[in-house]
């Protein structure tokens, strides 16, 4: 890829950043780029529901998960689902958490 093409690509990407205030960015603004999908194009989960292990038939033993245990409560977030949402806003053991992928 030549330099000119990369430069034009960066311009196009930067223009599509309208919407978030970047004036006080603490990293170089030109390094904040559009990733393709628009804001909320990938929908974060705000009211996640949970099932018991015997109901989790969609999971295969080798499926990758992110698990967390806080104050005695264990919850697990399959990568299969995180792939499509990237963020789950939840509460575990009374502690408000964001699971990010």
């Amino acid at each position, binding site marked *: 890829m030549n330099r000119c093409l990369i430069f034009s690509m960066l311009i196009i990407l930067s223009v599509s950043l309208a919407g*978030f205030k970047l004036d006080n960015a603490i990293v170089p603004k030109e390094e904040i780029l559009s990733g393709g999908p628009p804001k909320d194009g990938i929908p974060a989960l705000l009211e996640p529901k949970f099932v018991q292990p015997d109901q989790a038939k969609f999971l295969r033993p080798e499926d990758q998960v*992110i698990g967390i245990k806080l104050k005695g409560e264990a919850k697990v977030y399959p990568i299969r*689902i995180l792939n499509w949402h990237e963020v789950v806003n939840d509460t575990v053991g009374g502690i408000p958490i964001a699971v990010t992928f």
Partner: protein
Amino acid sequence: MVYSRNVEGKLYTFGVSGRLYKSNVLLYDHQTESLWSQLKEMAIAGPLAGKRPEKLASDRTSWKAWKKEHPRTLILSTDTGHVRDYMVDPYEGYYRTLGIWFPVGKVRTDLSPKEMVLGIELSGKAKAYPISLLRKNPGVLRDKVGGKGIEIEISPDGEVAGVRDEQGQAIPSIFSYWFAWQAFHPETSVYKD
């Protein structure tokens, strides 16, 4: 990575901004629309710029390994309110943060850019453990990061089953591509056999 949503006494909820920094996802909070970098672990623009959320220890492992340790675990349901085919990987054959044609600067050549690493940061020192190396050595790997002892437990079938400090307390870690980890931790060391 898992973060507390309580930042300096205020509660936030997070969405996906559609923006990237160094090829890594930028979240935003619905309350102030500040942008938060997942791997920089900090708000980088907006009213909360400079704030750091608390990182919480979590395990990235297989369902089998997690269920064995936590038989009463709850599992995030596929009933999410969104119509998605959760049996399909939207990023199949394609790195989810869109590959490295997005600028991440010069990539250190210690490992190949898309090699998966387990990244640990302690006392300001970062260390990357190539997953392929960990998988080959089931058992407990003892090492030091930032002068502190750590243990990485690898299950008999090669899954990362836990990352702990010397007192046995779980410590935060992340699975990441090498190029992304080194972009956010330019001084990182790399574990070798």
